[in-house]
């Protein structure tokens, strides 16, 4: 056995950094805090790489399968004998892979931010929040039990809230951060209810116990049926609801585009590479239950993923804010990952979708972080987010241009870049399972290539825009991370995921199926080709198309009016038809009743106080009258 107990420092170090920078940063070393934060992250990146190496290449396999190791565990809060929240570190292929993803991207973002955020007010606050986020995200992926995951799930939510609202004096940023928090909180309600139902049924929170394919949690059957589905299925659907919120799947996706109000490095880290894939990670973490005990819930995962990926890809084709295009692209790509999990089975080659999903998560983290950081460099240079105000930037930003092109080719699935491999595996898995979903994803692959190259051509080619200041290439702190990530995006495809990260921990054989690969490359090229014709040089085709398909364009451009639907529900229903009446009812009915009682008491007391007049004659009169009446009564009764 290798001792992995040091891994507890991987999440702890960022926590200490957060406390340190948060409490002392702004007073003593505002300028240095960036360097301190980055160094801290560099240390845990190295630790993570060491862990990955030791886990994948030197740890002992049992029966050819990677083991789930609990490197550290302590009871944090005891509910009952069996139900207790632990804090610990669970190492298995997916958590170790996530460690590598998170620390790599986070380190790149830290270095990049040293340049990007330089001179911003609240520089030290930014790095403190980044540390908080790193801590939360690492705690989330290393969780040993579902409640620990929920805890860190909430913490990444609040870090995301703080970072989206980083420019807290900007009303749009405040609105966006609030929206992100509340929408995901609503989804998390589902997650919590799911946990409650699940723990009631299985009497455990522990992942290893829960996901053991031969354990009681899975084999006990689904429990009683409710509305035609077993309790287990319901609980897994509820748990998935949390994932839908965090991963911005339809219909809880509306917070993600608005979240682009945050600083661009944050968008790269949280809203592209790490936090938004937490939902995928959650499903992967619980996968044996989904696959064996709740297959209906897994179907839901597949359809939600597929629909979201198509929905987002269509919207992405019409947006003009480059960060929003990337946001919808993220949603679409995460839809791919969800779909891949949804069409997967458990064990061996059946688990192709699972492997593909994790593979895509890995490659997507590289190329999407690269795209966002590239977008940040562009925005840094031209001070606008709108691609209509850009054009011809390839001359001014050579490094950004090359790395951005690499990222676009990767996401479009052009071999031998990494996106090709992971997407191909997903399509293959979908093809084996469900032809309709395969067709949808195949179309999305074409759309993806189209909208990415629409973006690329509009920014770097297209019309020659006159800029106020000549745009200049970003400083090295920003371009070096771009180059490193570009390198990652190129080579990540050659990592043998089928040997390392599989549904049951055992390696299986998978090869590129030309039947799937060739058409998928062709449709990617087709998308690029159309984008080339429409946007390489300024021309009238895009406008013509927009007027021809006026209504569908308008719907897509307005994101199918989902925001308006939400606004209606929150503003009208919650505020106007629930809260205001409740407040009115409380004042004018409940409280008025209490006041009414007081008024009645007072009125009655005013009326009857005349009896206590203090006049002796009156008392004597009443006394005598009463006595006579009583006497008469007695005499009458005596007879």
């Amino acid at each position, binding site marked *: 056995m290798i001792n992995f107990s040091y891994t507890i420092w991987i999440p702890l170090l960022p926590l200490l950094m957060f406390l340190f920078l948060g409490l002392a940063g702004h007073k003593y070393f505002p300028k240095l805090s960036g360097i301190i934060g980055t160094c801290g992250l560099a240390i845990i990146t190295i630790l993570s790489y060491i862990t990955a190496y030791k886990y994948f290449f030197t740890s002992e396999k049992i029966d050819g399968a990677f083991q789930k190791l609990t490197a550290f565990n302590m009871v944090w809060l*005891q509910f009952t004998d069996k139900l207790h929240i632990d804090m610990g570190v669970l190492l298995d292929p997916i958590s170790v892979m996530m460690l590598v993803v998170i620390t790599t991207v986070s380190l790149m973002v830290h270095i990049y931010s040293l340049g990007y955020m330089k001179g911003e007010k609240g520089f030290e606050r930014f790095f403190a929040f980044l540390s908080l986020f790193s801590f939360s995200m690492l705690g989330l992926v290393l969780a040993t039990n579902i409640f620990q995951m929920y805890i860190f799930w909430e913490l990444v939510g609040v870090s995301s809230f703080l970072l989206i609202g980083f420019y807290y*004096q900007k*009303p749009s940023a405040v609105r966006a951060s609030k929206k992100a928090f509340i929408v995901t909180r609503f989804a998390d309600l589902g997650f919590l209810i799911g946990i409650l139902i699940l723990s*009631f049924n299985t009497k455990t929170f522990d992942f290893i116990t829960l996901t053991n394919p031969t354990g009681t949690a899975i084999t006990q059957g689904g429990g009683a049926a409710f509305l035609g589905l077993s309790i287990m299925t319901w609980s897994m659907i509820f748990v998935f609801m949390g994932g839908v919120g965090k991963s911005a799947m339809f219909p809880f996706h509306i917070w993600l585009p608005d979240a682009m109000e945050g600083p661009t490095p944050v968008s790269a880290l949280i809203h592209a590479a790490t936090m938004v894939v937490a939902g995928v990670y959650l499903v992967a973490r619980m996968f044996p239950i989904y696959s064996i005990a709740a297959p209906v819930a897994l179907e839901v995962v597949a359809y939600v993923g597929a629909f979201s990926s198509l929905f987002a890809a269509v919207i992405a084709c019409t947006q003009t804010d480059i960060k929003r295009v990337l946001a919808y692209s993220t949603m679409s790509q995460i839809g791919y990952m969800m779909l891949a999990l949804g069409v997967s089975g458990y064990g061996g080659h059946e688990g192709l979708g699972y492997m593909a999903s994790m593979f895509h998560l890995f490659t997507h983290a590289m190329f999407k972080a690269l795209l966002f950081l590239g977008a940040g460099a562009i925005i840094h240079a031209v001070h606008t987010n709108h691609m209509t105000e850009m054009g011809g930037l390839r001359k001014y930003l050579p490094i950004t241009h090359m790395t951005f092109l690499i990222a676009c080719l990767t996401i479009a699935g052009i071999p031998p870049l990494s996106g090709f491999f992971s997407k191909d595996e997903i399509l293959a898995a979908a093809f084996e399972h469900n032809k309709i979903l395969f067709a949808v994803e195949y179309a999305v692959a074409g759309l993806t290539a189209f909208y990415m190259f629409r973006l690329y051509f509009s920014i770097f080619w297209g019309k020659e825009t006159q800029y106020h200041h000549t745009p200049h290439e970003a400083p090295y702190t920003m371009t070096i991370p771009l180059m490193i990530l570009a390198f990652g995006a190129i080579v990540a495809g050659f990592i043998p995921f089928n040997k390392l990260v599989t549904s049951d921990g055992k390696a299986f054989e998978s090869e590129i199926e030309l039947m799937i690969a060739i058409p998928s490359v062709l449709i990617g090229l087709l998308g690029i080709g159309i984008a080339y014709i429409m946007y390489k040089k300024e021309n009238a085709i895009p406008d013509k198309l927009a007027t021809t398909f006026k209504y569908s364009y308008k719907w897509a451009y307005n994101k199918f009016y989902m925001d308006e639907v939400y606004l209606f529900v929150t503003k009208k229903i919650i505020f106007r038809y629930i809260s205001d009446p409740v407040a009115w009812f409380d004042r004018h009915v409940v409280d008025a009743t209490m006041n009414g009682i007081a008024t009645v008491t007072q009125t009655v007391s005013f009326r009857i106080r005349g009896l206590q007049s203090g006049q002796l004659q009156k008392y004597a009169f009443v006394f005598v009258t009463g006595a006579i009446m009583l006497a008469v009564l007695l005499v009458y009764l005596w007879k």
Partner: protein
Amino acid sequence: MDNILTLFVVIPVLTITGILFLKDTRQVRLVAAFGMGLQLILAAVLVFLYLTARHSGNTAEMLFVKDVLWFKSLNIHYAVGVDGISVAMIGLTSIVVFAGIFASWEVEFLTKEFFVSLILLATGVFGFFISIDLFTMFLFYELAVIPMYLLIGIWGTGPKEYSAMKLTLMLMGGSALLLVGLLGIYFNSSPTGGQLTFNILEISKVTIPMSAQRLFFPLTFVGFGVLGALFPFHTWSPDGHASAPTAVSMLHAGVLMKLGGYGAFRVAIFLMPGAAHELSWIFIILTSISVVYGAFGAIAQKDLKYINAYSSVSHCGLVLFAVLMMNQTAMNGAIIQMISHGLMTALFFALIGMLYGRTHTRMIYEMGGLMKVIPFLSVCYVIAGLASLGLPGLSGFVAEMTIFVGAFQHHEVFYRVVTILAVSSIVITAVYILRVVAILLLGPTTNEHHEHLTDAKWFEKISVVTLIGAVAAIGLAPFWLSTMIGTSLHPIVDKIIALNPF
């Protein structure tokens, strides 16, 4: 060491006596702060002694018991004793009172009288938590309620006479029910015909006849429930809090409302578990209404204190809700929730008072963008808000999750469904907290008069940091608190279950 509990009443009385002899307001403040600081240290000592005693294997139900016969013909005793639950409540009280003294550092009008009333109130609360004799307990309870009338009526703001009167009358109405309930318990405390008693421990050994329980349980529960803001008897809370001065709001919402929850648990449910079990569904419905209704009510408010008052209705509703679930975990959660809410809400009211002292308004729409102007107070407000909406790492999360997990272990489907309803309040809470934070603190500074406010002074920092420290300590390391409460709950829950086999 035997008399350590009595010290909790003696120190405040000595402090009050000391203050009465002073003239200078500065000295009054210092003596008050010193006395309550001593009380805080004493509470820490008590926790330490309690844990040591338990560690050394003392399994008596109550520790540090002291029993003096007081009024022989009715068998009334001055009887005190604590278990883990009361120790926790005493700790809470001493922290909130300590912070409250510092939050009212700048009371100018009748300073001496103010601190005397405030500490008198605290005396009542401490006395209540250490008592194990129903009569003494009731006495202390009344002692806590009466200074409240003066504190709001004299040092309050807005329609203070109205609010003070309303609050006092409603609480007195509750007391009336309570007194009948307590006497009912007393007269049934010895069904076999022996000496009647007010002592909780002795009563808990006998079974009060069910016919009596059915009558007196609702009286006692509602009597305490009025103080715990049970729907529909909660309306004193928004008006009372809105008019009360800062420290009184802190003490009232932070501690006094907990008397309701604590009493409902220690007296109503513990002594009459049969009726509690039978009738719990009625009160479960009322409390779950409190939880959701309070939260929705808070969304629509515009005055900071009203928002917090409604939020308290929601959070305190959760306490009574959990107590009625009558299982180990949920009850444990209820106690933690009392402590957590006490600290959080005291923090909120302290901050609201500090904001009001600067901006002279509590209307959220008259403020905006304060984060830039007074960052310290604003950050503290955000932390209080995050604690209130149940962010992990702060106390609210621990309390709520213990309640939800506990309540969901209930074997009857009805109770689990209601639990899901109560769980949904976490979203509504997030809505009203973030709404306030966004309007009040974030965005551009909207009111030009607020551009040059000064940030927290040293005494304000002491007050706020003490409370935040406690909130974070429970949130980060809940294990010891939960265990301390849990071990004391075990015998109680066992007794309840033994009397009412489910």
